[in-house]
């Protein structure tokens, strides 16, 4: 009995040590098994704080999530002169539809799409929409355009992790996937009453 009691914490210690050993091995493998190709450099293989915290089937505890979200929110660049939605929804549609950019076959890190349709329904007429994210059909019509909702949506598009640290949605502004101007176009696509997103 005494022996078993002594051994139990040792075994626990060993398995914890092995788990962190494994984490270190995986992090090393994520570098050593890859090579840089064009714009896809090896620094892509190193995790930042959010990526690291959200790399298991279960997300971190509530306090950690909150701390991460606050740090991510602080990275959001709010629009010049409060111009949230003054973009061109037609440009926004093109950006939402295009999923191209940032792979090792792309020549430049600029002119990317937002890939929104990979994960979201937006224009109700578009049948080929992904389902990883919630439907955004009728977004502006349903949500309205209060300062609160417009600001939240800008923040979500700039850095989705500011509102859900382990979101599957990419950080468009923070990650330099989209520019501020592009995000404004997508905002117009979501909020403009003339946008097909808001037509029934």
């Amino acid at each position, binding site marked *: 009995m005494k022996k078993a009691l002594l051994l139990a914490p040792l075994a626990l210690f060993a398995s914890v040590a092995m788990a962190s050993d*494994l*984490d270190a*091995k*995986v992090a090393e*493998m*994520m570098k*050593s*098994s*890859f*090579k*840089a*190709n064009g714009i*896809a*450099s*090896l620094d*892509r*293989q*190193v*995790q930042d704080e*959010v*990526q*690291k915290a*959200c*790399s*298991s*089937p279960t997300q971190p505890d509530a306090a950690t999530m909150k701390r991460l979200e606050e740090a991510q929110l602080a990275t959001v660049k709010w629009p010049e002169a409060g111009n949230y939605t003054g973009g061109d929804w037609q440009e926004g549609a093109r950006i939402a539809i295009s*999923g191209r950019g*940032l*792979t*090792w*076959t792309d020549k430049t890190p600029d002119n990317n799409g937002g890939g929104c*349709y*990979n*994960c979201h329904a937006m224009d109700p007429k578009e*049948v*080929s*929409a*992904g*389902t*990883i994210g919630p439907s955004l059909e009728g977004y502006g019509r349903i949500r309205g355009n209060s300062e609160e909702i417009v600001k939240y949506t800008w923040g979500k598009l700039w850095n989705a*992790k500011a509102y859900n640290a382990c979101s*599957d949605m*990419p*950080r468009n502004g923070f*990650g*330099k*996937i989209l520019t501020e101007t592009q995000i404004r176009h997508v905002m117009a696509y979501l909020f403009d009453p003339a946008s097909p997103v808001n037509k029934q």
Partner: protein
Amino acid sequence: MRQKIIAAAIAAAAVVAAPQALASEELNFDAYRQMLADGNPAELFEMEGEELWTTARGPKNATLEKCDLGLGANVVVGAAAQMPRYFADTDKVQDLESRLMHCMDALQGIPSAEIINGSFLKGERAKVAALVAYVVGQSKGKPIQVDLAHPKMKEMYAMGEKTFYYRTGAMDFACSSCHSQDGKRIRATSLPNITTSKGAAEGWGSWPAYRVSNSQFWTMQHRLWDCFRQQRTAEPVFGSDVTIALSTFMAGKGNGHEAVWPGVKR
């Protein structure tokens, strides 16, 4: 023989390439399956691979008939269903492609570096793909049966599972971002939930596959390479540990389910 295979391949490619012009996004899969009922074009690669297995090649002018895929030299039937596996002679866990690469190097003198540094669908790497087609063709309808008992297999599996959830790259994706929920789609494409045994078997067991959208035969190494591309990471090295770890995880998770390889895919 070779001439005939190539002629047949061209004919098959022409048949399947035509409807591609219509709408690649909304393919009618049943129509394809119907069209392919007479023969999966992957069979042409199987034939090429079978011929390669018994053809003396490389600086050592040898065949692959001494190659041991885990069940003994020259035993091909059922071998793919049990890979990846631990091989004592290399003291490594190897998937089918890295094992073939090892055999080509050891028996035929074809340097692995040539394959690792090559490109998909070209040169010796294309030869590996044809050999893969032949070998998996000899495990048709077999249940996936990967032996995870060896400590190195256990470790590879554990590393593969961790890698599956490892978020990194320009869009923060992990494999799990796209493959950990039931019934999800990217655009119109359904994604298997690889965190379930059935979903893992569906993903693992339907590659290598003939892709009708581009008339190409893709191995699992090729499939994973393209998923990493979509994940916006740097480029995975052919046959590297990360590819073996993920393969061991998916195959091990899918244990017991039937494999349908070589598959036919969009």
